C-alpha cells in the first residue's frame, strides 16, 4: 500500500508539469500584458519594467526560468502587487481559505452523510421526503445566491450576525460563509450516500446477512456503509480541492481576505505569476485530493486494484 501510494505520488509530477506548461503558454499567448494600463506608459518606462521582470527574454527562456523557480519553491514576484512575491500573497490568503473550506467540508459531511443514511433506511418515508426537499433546495441555491441572501436575511434584516467582514475568523463572522460553503457539500453527500446505500442494500450479500438474522443497524454499520461510500469518495476528491482552495464568490460576498480572488484578479490584470501560482496550488490540491480519493477507494473496496 505504501509503495503504491509512493508510486502514485511520483506519477503526479509529470501531470503537474504538463499542467504548468499548458497554462504557462496559454496565458502568455493570450493578447494583452501586465503593463497595459488605461493610459499608455512611455516606451522607455515600459521597457525598463519588462526588463526588471524578465519579460524581455524569449518565451522559452522565461518558461525554463519559471519551472526552475518552481522547483525551488519560488513562484516569482507579483506584477501588480508591488514589492510582494506570489509566495507571500498566497501564504497570506490560502490558510484563511483552507481553514474556512475545511470547516465547511467537515460540517457538510457531518450533516450530509447521516442525512443520506436516514433517508435510505426510511426510504419513501417522511425523513426521505424531507431530505429530498432540503437537498434539492440546497442544490438550487448556488453560493452567489445563497451568500447574499443569508447576508441580507441574518445580517441586514435580523441583525443577528455581521453581514460581512472577517475579524481574524471569529465564529460570528465565519458562520454565514461556512454555511454557504457547506450547503452544497451537505446536499451532494446526502444524495450520494442515499443512492449508494440503497444500491448496496439490494445486493445479495446484504440479503444473506439479513437472512442470517442480523439487525438493520448492524447490517448498515458492518456491511453496507463501506461500499455505499464509494460514490461519495469519488465525488469528494475534486470537490474538496475546489472548496479548500477558496471560493471567490464567498470571499467577495463576505469580504474575506482569502486566496479565492487571486485567480480572477490575476487573470484580469494579466498578473502572470499570480495566476500561475494559483493554478499550481489548485492543480496540486486537485491531484492530491484525487489521489487520496483513489487510495480511499482501494481501502473501501479491495476488489479495485489499479495497474
Amino acid at each position: 500500500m505504501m509503495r503504491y501510494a509512493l508510486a502514485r505520488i511520483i506519477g503526479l509530477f509529470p501531470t503537474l508539469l504538463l499542467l504548468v506548461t499548458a497554462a504557462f503558454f496559454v496565458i502568455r499567448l493570450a493578447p494583452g500584458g501586465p503593463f497595459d494600463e488605461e493610459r499608455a506608459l512611455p516606451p522607455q518606462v515600459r521597457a525598463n519594467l519588462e526588463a526588471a521582470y524578465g519579460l524581455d527574454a524569449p518565451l522559452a527562456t522565461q518558461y525554463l526560468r519559471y519551472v526552475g523557480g518552481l522547483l525551488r519553491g519560488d513562484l516569482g514576484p507579483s506584477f501588480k502587487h508591488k514589492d510582494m512575491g506570489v509566495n507571500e500573497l498566497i501564504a497570506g490568503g490560502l490558510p484563511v481559505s483552507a481553514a474556512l473550506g475545511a470547516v465547511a467540508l467537515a460540517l457538510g459531511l457531518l450533516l450530509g452523510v447521516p442525512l443520506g443514511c436516514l433517508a435510505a433506511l426510511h426510504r419513501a418515508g417522511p425523513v426521505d421526503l424531507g431530505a429530498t426537499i432540503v437537498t434539492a433546495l440546497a442544490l438550487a441555491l448556488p453560493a452567489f445566491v445563497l451568500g447574499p441572501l443569508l447576508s441580507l436575511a441574518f445580517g441586514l434584516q435580523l441583525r443577528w450576525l455581521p453581514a460581512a467582514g472577517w475579524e481574524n475568523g471569529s465564529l460570528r463572522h465565519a458562520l454565514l460563509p461556512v454555511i454557504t460553503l457547506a450547503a452544497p457539500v451537505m446536499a451532494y453527500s446526502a444524495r450520494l450516500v442515499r443512492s449508494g446505500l440503497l444500491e448496496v442494500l439490494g445486493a445479495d450479500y446484504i440479503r444473506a446477512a439479513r437472512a442470517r438474522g442480523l439487525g438493520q443497524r448492524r447490517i448498515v454499520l458492518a456491511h453496507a456503509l463501506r461500499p455505499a461510500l464509494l460514490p461519495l469518495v469519488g465525488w469528494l476528491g475534486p470537490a474538496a480541492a475546489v472548496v479548500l482552495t477558496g471560493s471567490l464568490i464567498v470571499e467577495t460576498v463576505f469580504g474575506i481576505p482569502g486566496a479565492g480572488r487571486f485567480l480572477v484578479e490575476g487573470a484580469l490584470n494579466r498578473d502572470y505569476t499570480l495566476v500561475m501560482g494559483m493554478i499550481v496550488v489548485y492543480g496540486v490540491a486537485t491531484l492530491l485530493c484525487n489521489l487520496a480519493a483513489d487510495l480511499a477507494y482501494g481501502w473501501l473496496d479491495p476488489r479495485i486494484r489499479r495497474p
Partner: protein
Amino acid sequence: MAGSTLASAGRDLARHRAALAAAVALAALCLVALAAPWLSPHAAGAIDLARPALAPGADASHGWGTDRLGRDVFARTMQGLRISLLIGLAAALVSAVIGVAWGAVAGYAGGRIDAVMMRIVDILYALPFVFFVIILATLFGRGSVPVLLAAIASVGWLTTARIVRGQALALRRQGFIDAARAMGSSGGRILWRHILPNVAGPVIAYTALTVPQMIIYESFLSFLGLGVQEPLASLGSLISEGARDMESAPWLLLAPAACLTLLTLSLNVLGDGLRDVLDPRTHP
C-alpha cells in the same frame, strides 16, 4: 414483502408527481419569460431616470419595481431568464455531444488510447474553470454569447465523458460485445448499435441535470462580470447588481435570485425524475 413493494410504488408515484409539478413550473416559467415583452409595457433596457429605484408596488406599471436607472425589474429579469435558459440548454447539449463521443471511444478502445484520452480529461479537470473562461474571453472578446457558450461547454463535457467511458468500459466486458465482435461487426457499428443505446439512459438523465449546472456556471461568470454584458442581462449579472444594492433595494436581488432558484430547482427535480425512469440502475 408486499408492503415494501407498495411503498416503493408509492414512492415512484410521488417522485413522478414531483417531476410533473417541476415540468409544469418550468413550462410556466418559460412561457412567462418568452411572453414578457407583451406582458409588460416597459422594454427590458428602457431607462427612465425620473423613476429610479422604485420599490415593488410603488408604481402600478412597475409591478416588481425599478433599478437605479429606472429600468423595469420584471422586464429585465425575464430577459435574464431567457438568456440564462438559452445558454444553459445550448451548453448542455454541446457538452453532451462532446462528452459522449469522447467517453464512448475511450471506453470502447481501452488500453493506451483510453489512457491518453482520460489523461487529457484529468488535466482539463485540474485546470480551474475560471482560468479557462478568462483565457477564452480575452482571446475572443468578453461578453460574446458564443464564447461564453464554448467556455461553459468546454468544462461541462468532462463529467459526461467520464460517465460514458466508465459505462463503455463495463459494457466492453459484457458478452454481447464479444458476440458482436465474433459476428464481424466493425468497431464503429458496435459503438453505434450497442454502446450508445446502452449508455443513452444515463446520458439523457445526466444531461437533464447538466442544464441547471450550466445555467449556474453562466450566472457565476456573469456575477463576476465575465459573462453577459450590459445592456443585456442574465440572471447572474442581475444578482450581482442586486447584491451590491441589497441594503437599500433588496428587491433587485430577490427578483432574479427567486427566478434562478425556481428555475434550477424545477430543472433538478425534473432531471431526477427522468433519471429514475431512464437509468436502469435505479430500478432493477
